[in-house]
């Protein structure tokens, strides 16, 4: 595998940038992350699962946060299936497979953020399977009162900080964290810029590209991702691509186990431009900048409490707010409809689905729903459903 492209000096075309991202995405041996680790003795890599982890802390500890979002459709899962019944979603299996086949043997720590009971239990399995890897189940608050949930969360962040200090053997100063927050603020701004760009000119930024760009970003240093994002924005803006007679849609429900790339492409092929989505939410989880002044831990906690997205793994304290976030985003991105695409057997998303869809209906936003698995092979039913949706938006609205 190639070493990391120096995007700082080489302004590249979208094709080059995306090829680089695709290579990172396809590489289930994480060669680039291994190279990063080996480049400087003592470096540590900390893996994290969907849907949100405070990457700022990992970065401040001098570690590489490595996003682990399953094995996609390219991995043959043998041992992973031995740990799960058929009615459990795919992502924990392929994650276990990555672990037991030694592909993660360079990962020094693992963070299992709170998404659902499956990931929660996986954190315990990891402790049994890999007793020498530092691992942490990271339970974020479901109480959004700064004095209750906020205080609890700050203490949890502090505990995480201490865990990372123990792992790396170095202290993480408040300034370290502030510096990381600033870099991630840049990242969030650039990510939003790419999303805005796509919403404006979706034919210039196909979703499969945006997706690869974001996924690859979770496997590299944030500084590099920031450069890559800027380069992509510049290149995509400059390139002329044909505009097709597609409809504009938003995709929700895919915050954890990711759909196969072919599915993302199929939706577009069937006549839909994706202008908003919740794929790999991590880098869009906080919707605003985190203040760099004052107590950085408190700032992170506050940002989570006050400016994080609505998603299925978070409690919505007020009934009337349910689905509000989605509707606002749909309007902002000027999407004509919503595809609620969830992994099979994903309780959080599937139990949320009726509630969110009801709200969409109330708001007059057309929507359809289907399920997928990260290794879905048959795209025909997907094309048919997405295609009919596109037909209907095109012919009659």
């Amino acid at each position, binding site marked *: 595998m190639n070493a990391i492209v120096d995007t700082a000096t080489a302004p590249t075309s979208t094709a080059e940038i995306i090829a680089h991202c695709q290579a990172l995405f396809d590489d289930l041996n994480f060669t680039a992350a291994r190279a990063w680790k080996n480049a400087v003795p003592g470096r540590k890599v900390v893996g994290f699962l969907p849907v949100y982890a405070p990457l700022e802390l990992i970065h401040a500890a001098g570690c590489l946060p490595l996003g682990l979002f399953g094995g996609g459709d390219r991995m043959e899962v043998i041992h992973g299936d031995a740990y799960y019944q058929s009615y459990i979603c795919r992502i924990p299996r392929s994650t276990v497979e990555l672990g037991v086949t030694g592909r993660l043997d360079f990962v020094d720590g693992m963070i299992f953020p*709170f998404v659902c009971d499956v990931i929660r239990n996986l954190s315990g399995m990891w402790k049994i399977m890999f007793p020498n890897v530092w691992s942490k189940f990271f339970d974020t608050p479901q109480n959004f009162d700064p004095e209750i949930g906020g205080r*609890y969360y700050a203490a949890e962040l502090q505990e995480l900080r201490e865990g990372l200090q123990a792992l790396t053997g170095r202290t993480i100063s408040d300034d370290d964290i502030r510096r990381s927050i600033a870099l991630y603020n840049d990242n969030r701004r650039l990510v939003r810029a790419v999303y805005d760009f796509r919403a404006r000119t979706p034919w210039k930024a196909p979703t499969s590209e945006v997706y690869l760009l974001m996924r690859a970003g979770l496997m590299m240093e944030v500084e590099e991702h920031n450069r890559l994002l800027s380069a992509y924005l510049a290149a995509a803006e400059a390139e002329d691509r044909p505009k097709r007679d597609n409809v504009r849609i938003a995709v929700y429900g895919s915050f954890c186990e990711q759909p196969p790339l072919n599915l993302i492409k199929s939706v577009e092929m069937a006549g839909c431009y994706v202008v908003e989505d919740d794929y790999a939410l991590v880098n869009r989880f906080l919707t605003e900048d985190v203040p760099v002044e004052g107590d950085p831990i408190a700032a992170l906690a506050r940002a989570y409490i006050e400016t994080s997205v609505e998603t299925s793994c978070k409690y919505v304290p007020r009934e009337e707010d349910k689905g509000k976030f989605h509707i606002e985003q749909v309007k902002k991105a000027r999407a004509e409809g919503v595809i609620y695409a969830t992994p099979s057997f994903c309780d959080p998303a599937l139990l949320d689905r009726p509630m969110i869809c009801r709200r969409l209906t109330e708001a007059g936003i057309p929507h359809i729903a289907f399920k997928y698995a990260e290794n879905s092979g048959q795209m025909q039913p997907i094309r048919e459903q997405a295609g009919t949706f596109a037909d209907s938006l095109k012919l009659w609205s």
Partner: protein
Amino acid sequence: MSEAVKEPSMLLQKEMIAKNYDAITSKHQSGRKVSSTFVPGNLNELLASFGILNNLPEINAIQNGMRKLSGDYILEAEKSGHSEDVCTYVKADIGMMGKGNIAPNGKPFPDPDVLLLSYTGCYTFMKWFELLREEYKCPTLMLHVPYEGDGHSTKNMRDYIVSQLKEVIIPGLEQVSGVKFDIDRLREALRNSAKAEDDLVWVLEQGKRTPSPIDAYFGGVYYIGPIFTAFRGTPEAIAYYQALRKEVQARIDAGVGPVTPDGSNFSDQKYRLVVEGPPNWTSFRDFWKMFYDEGAVVVASSYTKVGGMYDLGFRHDPDHPLESLADYCLGCYTNRNLPTRVDILTKYVEDYQADGLLINSIKSCNSFSAGQLMIMKEVERRTSKPGAFIETDLVDPRYFSAANVKNRLESYFQMIEQKRRGAARAA
């Protein structure tokens, strides 16, 4: 099907449950308030101290499962847009609402006055009550109980729960009930709880005897009934457990096993099992029969710990009321991390001298099921006793394949038998 034979304690419990349903369905006459809340992490003593009645949707789902209504309810929920993939307790509950919301006593359930979302050990709870909230538009109080990811609770977790109790739950309940919080009433209830808990633990531990005078799974679900539901902290529960204890003592004295639904004492116990996971409710008796027909008795189970792990020493403590409620919530079985579950089950297999661990994996329940295959492997490795794995569902009759389950159980029992003979021959 002939009427199942029931022991006196079961009849007593049946009466208690009926009385509670009557109290719930007559709330408009009595003017009492009704809450909905979940079994794991339920705050029955606290509710009782406000005079609020407790209606547990999981128990309703079980009742509907046993009365063969759940299948239709689940279909009803699926028709309204719920996925086939998700927890069937939720769908049975939602479907029941869709079909008139009739309580087991034949009267309509009144709308709850408050949803007490004690979010302990299961993610689905959160969605479940978001869904109910949408329906009832009633006050919803969320108590977030953090998961013991590292195998133990921390001070931060406990403080977090206690502050939620103080700032959210208690003021919320005061408002709903119009009653001022009275810590002494709470203490009194907690004192009652601890008494009943002592007797429950005694009963469950009798599974260590040979023959076992109890069945800690099929019988066990009756033993835990009152203390896991609306009766913890009440004098009725104390009386129930005294009666149960007497009943079990009588069997010990007679040297006989538990009573089966056929009415016979099941004393010819060939296999002793530890069972992990909830039972199937839609074919409960058939399922049970597959065990005692083959001579298998369950000596310990994890399902009887979902509403509190009293056998590991926890007791509600009148001297530290809110802290002990926090500890109770944190310590429920499904709020323990996987390595701890392995430790507990391993200990059961050893302490109860079981032939092995049997897992009944429930399609509905990710909280229990995700990771059970690893639990089995680990327990097998540590105890050198073979495990077995069967798959059913709680209340979805479509997922109970009798032939399939029977085949696996028989194979498992025959394997234990063959191993024993092999060992005898070698000796």
